[in-house]
């Protein structure tokens, strides 16, 4: 029997944070979160380890977010009450800078800096080649460096 409740306990925050990092909308992140765990409930394979389960869920979440983002008809706007606001000026600047990056760059930034994955692991999660991920990470850092005027 699929332990969806346990999976939400173990990985719910990680899934939600990745979903929000990609969509930058609480509403969309809610949708991605729900869809990810419904897919988990419906079709999760047997996992070799907790890390395997976490990586699978992040992969599904990234795909759900990508589906949402890839539509040319997706609204490119976010409702006013739909974003996290930061009082700290530094956090606010980072948030603004991230908002100006494309979702594909935010994905690698999040998985690298927040989840702590190496580029090979990020490549597996995002279904990209390791060289693509390395290039995207470099470009994302360059853009953030420009926007934040600081070294990463």
């Amino acid at each position, binding site marked *: 029997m699929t332990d*969806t*409740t346990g999976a*939400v306990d173990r990985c*719910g*925050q990680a*899934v*939600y*944070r990745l979903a*929000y*990092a990609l969509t*930058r909308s609480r509403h969309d*992140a*809610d949708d991605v*979160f*729900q869809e990810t*765990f*419904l*897919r*988990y*409930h*419906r*079709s*999760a*394979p047997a996992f070799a380890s907790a890390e395997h389960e976490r990586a699978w869920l992040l992969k*599904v979440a990234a*795909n759900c977010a*990508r*589906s949402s983002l*890839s*539509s*040319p*008809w997706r*609204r*490119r*706007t*976010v*409702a*006013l009450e*739909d*974003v*996290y606001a*930061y009082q*700290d000026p*530094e*956090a606010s*600047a*980072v*948030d*603004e800078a991230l*908002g*100006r990056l494309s979702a594909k760059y935010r994905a690698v*930034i999040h998985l690298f*800096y*927040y989840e702590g994955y190496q580029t090979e692991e990020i490549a597996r999660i995002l*279904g990209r080649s390791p060289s693509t991920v390395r290039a995207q990470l470099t470009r994302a850092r360059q853009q*953030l460096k420009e*926007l*934040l005027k*600081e070294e*990463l």
Partner: protein
Amino acid sequence: MFSETYQKMNESVTPSPELIQRTLQHAQKRRQPPLRRTAAIAAALTVLLATPALAARTEIGYQALYLIAPAAAQFFQPVRMSCTDNGLTMEVEAVRVEGDTAQAYITLSGDAVDKTCDLYDSYDFHLPFDQEGHCEQVAYDDASHSATFLCTVKTMSGQAIPTGGKMTFSVREFLSGKTVLKDAVVDLDLADYDAEAATAPTWSRPSEKKPNAFYCTGGGGTGGLENIPMLLPGDPLANPIPSISVSAAGYADGLFHIQVQLKNRMETDAHCFLWLEDSDGNRLAPLNDVYHTRGQGAEQEDYLDAVFDISPAELEHYTLHGDFIASSKLTRGNWRVTFLLENTFTEEALTEISQGHRTGSFDRQDTLLTFVSQLEQQEQRTIRGPEGYDYAFQEDTGDAALAVFTCPDGAQLQVRLEKIPYEDTTGLWQVTAYGWQEKAIA
């Protein structure tokens, strides 16, 4: 520093208890898949496991594929089946199904196709699994207006895609005529707009809704988003690209606004990023980007107000810059091709052939008409007319052929056949793909 800040920022990003409860309730209510479908998948897997690898396919079809992807050609199964709708032809060049992954090289050709053509997510491998995929343009031929894409899907669960059956690939719509103007200077003298500008009525909550007012769909940025006014749109002040024009500029509540209209946004995917830049190249990013919309369908209007914190005296030192992106054409249609995956001959069938019970497989016409009569029953369509089957071979190389049937209802059925080598025989004919044309090709 960034890493620490980002870690800290994420602490507040967390799913609400209501969301968790709702998700778990949904999961518990979700019914198991119908037994019939489970049985069908199990049966397909059984066929797969029981089927030996068949001899390599003939060379037909590889020629086209080698031009596109020579390194990958040997792993792909040529299909070369096309479907025409709305003046555009989609040809599935070749497919590969391996484990949990299906890939197809497809070529779209027609006047609406250009090198900016993008399928986005409007293509589909019809599979009874949750799937995720992506699509990339791998080649474009300007002379024939043909763009070739590699579409890839994987099953979400990692479950293998059954081979031995058939699969349909379809495309519903695509955008083309994409214009990308990067880091463009907009021909607008900002100093001319240093005065207060008229604003438009807006609303963001249902209780505030007013007739003819613009709905604030949201935005982003560092400034407080609440209560940022929208400038009243006017005649275009500048037109960086055809789908995007500057519709107003000026001050409102002490902040400088540049407003752009995103024309026919639902069908052009028009969007842009604006900033101000001084003569030394220093950029001033907007405090906020705020989006407003009004009307629906053909009447819909979409505007973006980029809001800058800059004094009127400073305006003369800056110019307006932006990245502007829009597609000019949305093409809809119903392009679909069905192809049969490898191993149409099971071990049992090959035994029967060896024993002389299925001689029809050596005969192209027998193979073709047997397939078509079965297809009539499977798809509940009438292919045979009162005087028998009306068909002709449009391509015939001896080892491969394309038969085109004209049905009583005017539709056309295309069936591609190939002859595969088999032991010491003249070879076995098999159908590799088919497709319907609801209207006869002109």
